């Protein structure tokens, strides 16, 4: 009965009817070798054991609008089209082999860094490709950048994470990171001084708080686009797709379902119009890993009743097996918080778990960095490096691996007790990314304890989660009332049986 286990196609699928109690684990047949040769492994996206998870929302257009546009009026104080300053962005003239395809890479400290900087942009003035104005903002309803002067819309190119290292996830070895995820250097100043190419003035931006500033002389909008090792400029950004009004509606809907036991002061002060659009910093990781787990499992062989004193009791016979499993797997776009403050999810002192809950995002639709996507929104700077997040990644990979082993132990009807486990990470690919969140915050003080309650809306999928401060007085009333009713029902049941 003992033997090697190899997962069979379709194994673990639910079958109608109860399993006979004497049936041993399916893996006990010795028809297969314990290790599957590479050639037999199914190609990605075709194997039955593979799963492709969340359905991404409708993709946003990321191509520059190609339709001919009517001649735009020239912005006062801006050069006409075709008379742009050196170094200025002109997405329409981009070659297909731009930065991401130029993946020579550099190796530092065992990491392979791939340059992901947007070479078309610079720190300072970056103009509308049609009229040359610098007042550029994201239009959330279309996911495109829009010139506030001539209404021209365009987008940065889609960020293709797979081009980092130029290998599929299954061939990843070592650690590959985008330069936007490079180690943060403590001696790099957060203050960036940019020279305004419109008038020559020097404009200072504190990258801890903003990624753009307006020239105080000529009113040009200046943006920070060059990657500096302080964590301010990520590899990619996922633009807002949900408008502010849509976010307000979702927050209102969420709180309306939670009115009765909400804190009275919260109800009085609740103003969903105060919602803020925030780009949160994350590391998006592809990983090629394997997990090993060892434990014991039990298979029921018999169920019967026996007499014990005056009572009859149900007892079971079972066979105990030593279970060993190995699983190779690849994860795509695992998303980790890269802000230490947000990663702290102690629900006794904060509500950061709320922001974590609205994951995942459709990160495959992220675009290359352009600070103009942040205009009108706030952002939080990354303060965690790859080295800080590696233990978190290993922990999550172990959890994923263990969850995927469930299929292979389904025949152990009495369950498995895993006793030891091991994760082997062959290769990872890290990209730092800003992800869009609509965030409503409420500062609440109760019995001298302060807490910020968040209601967060995923600005791509619309998934909403929140923490509403409760009225403990009302909760007690509800508890005592229902307790009394249950007690009354129990006593009534007792009386009826006498």
């Amino acid at each position, binding site marked *: 009965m*003992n033997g090697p*286990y190899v997962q069979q196609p379709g194994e673990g699928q639910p079958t109608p009817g109860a399993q006979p109690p004497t049936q041993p684990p399916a*893996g006990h047949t010795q028809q297969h070798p314990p290790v599957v040769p590479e050639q037999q492994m199914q190609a*990605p996206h075709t194997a039955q054991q593979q799963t492709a998870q969340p359905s991404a929302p409708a993709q946003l257009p990321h191509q520059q609008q190609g339709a001919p546009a009517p001649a735009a009026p020239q912005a006062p104080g801006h050069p006409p089209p075709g008379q742009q300053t050196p170094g200025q962005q002109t997405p329409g003239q981009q070659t297909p082999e731009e930065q991401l395809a130029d993946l020579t890479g550099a190796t530092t400290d065992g990491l392979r860094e791939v340059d992901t900087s947007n070479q078309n942009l610079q720190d300072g003035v970056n103009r509308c490709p049609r009229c040359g104005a610098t007042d550029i903002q994201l239009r959330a309803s279309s996911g495109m950048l829009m010139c506030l002067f001539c209404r021209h819309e365009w987008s940065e190119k889609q960020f293709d994470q797979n081009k980092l290292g130029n290998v599929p996830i299954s061939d990843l070895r070592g650690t590959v990171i985008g330069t936007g995820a490079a180690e943060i250097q403590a001696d790099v100043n957060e203050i960036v001084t940019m020279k305004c190419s419109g008038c020559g003035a020097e404009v200072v931006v504190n990258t801890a708080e903003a990624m753009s500033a307006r020239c105080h002389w000529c009113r040009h909008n200046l943006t920070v686009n060059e990657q500096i090792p302080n964590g301010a400029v990520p590899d990619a950004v996922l633009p807002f797709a949900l408008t502010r009004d849509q976010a307000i509606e979702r927050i209102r809907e969420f709180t309306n379902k939670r009115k009765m036991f909400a804190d009275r002061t919260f109800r009085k002060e609740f103003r969903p119009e105060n919602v803020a659009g925030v780009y949160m910093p994350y590391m998006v990781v592809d990983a090629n890993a394997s997990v090993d787990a060892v434990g*014991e499992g039990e298979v029921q062989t018999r169920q019967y009743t026996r007499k014990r004193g005056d009572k009859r009791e149900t007892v079971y016979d079972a066979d105990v097996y030593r279970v060993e499993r190995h699983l190779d797997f690849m*994860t795509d776009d695992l998303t980790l918080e890269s802000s230490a403050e947000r990663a702290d999810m102690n629900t006794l002192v904060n509500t950061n778990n709320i922001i974590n809950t609205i994951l995942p995002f459709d990160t495959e639709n992220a675009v290359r960095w352009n600070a103009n996507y942040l205009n009108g929104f706030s952002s939080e700077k990354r303060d965690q490096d790859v080295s800080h997040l590696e233990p978190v990644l290993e922990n999550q990979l172990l*959890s994923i691996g*263990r969850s995927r*082993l469930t299929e292979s132990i389904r025949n152990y009807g009495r369950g498995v007790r895993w006793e030891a486990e091991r994760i082997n990470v062959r290769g990872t690919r890290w990209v730092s990314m800003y992800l869009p969140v609509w965030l409503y915050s409420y500062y609440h003080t109760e019995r001298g304890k302060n807490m910020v309650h968040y209601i967060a809306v995923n600005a791509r999928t619309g998934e909403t989660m929140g923490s509403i401060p409760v009225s403990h007085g009302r909760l007690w009333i509800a508890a005592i009332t229902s307790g009394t009713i249950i007690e009354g029902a129990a006593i009534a049941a007792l009386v009826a049986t006498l």
Partner: protein
Amino acid sequence: MNTLLIALATVLPIASSSSDGYLLALLLAGPVGGGVVYWMIYRYYRNTDKTHHFEAETRVETRPATGSDTKVNSIRGTRRRAIPGRNDGDHRTRVRRF
């Protein structure tokens, strides 16, 4: 309904132990039910138990699991419904590393 089920699950083992246990369970039904109601409403409002289900919501490609199953023992007449320390559904709790 959930509240009632949880309260029953709490008090039934006590009730089944003896006649004294039955009375004790009767007394406990109200307080346990009230406590369950309090906790369920609190959790619905505060969502302290919610996190990203990365195990299910991340795109994962797996290859066929391999390994072995070796019979090491047989047990007879146990009252336990499941293996002691069962944790195959608790993916986030770490066990010893090897």
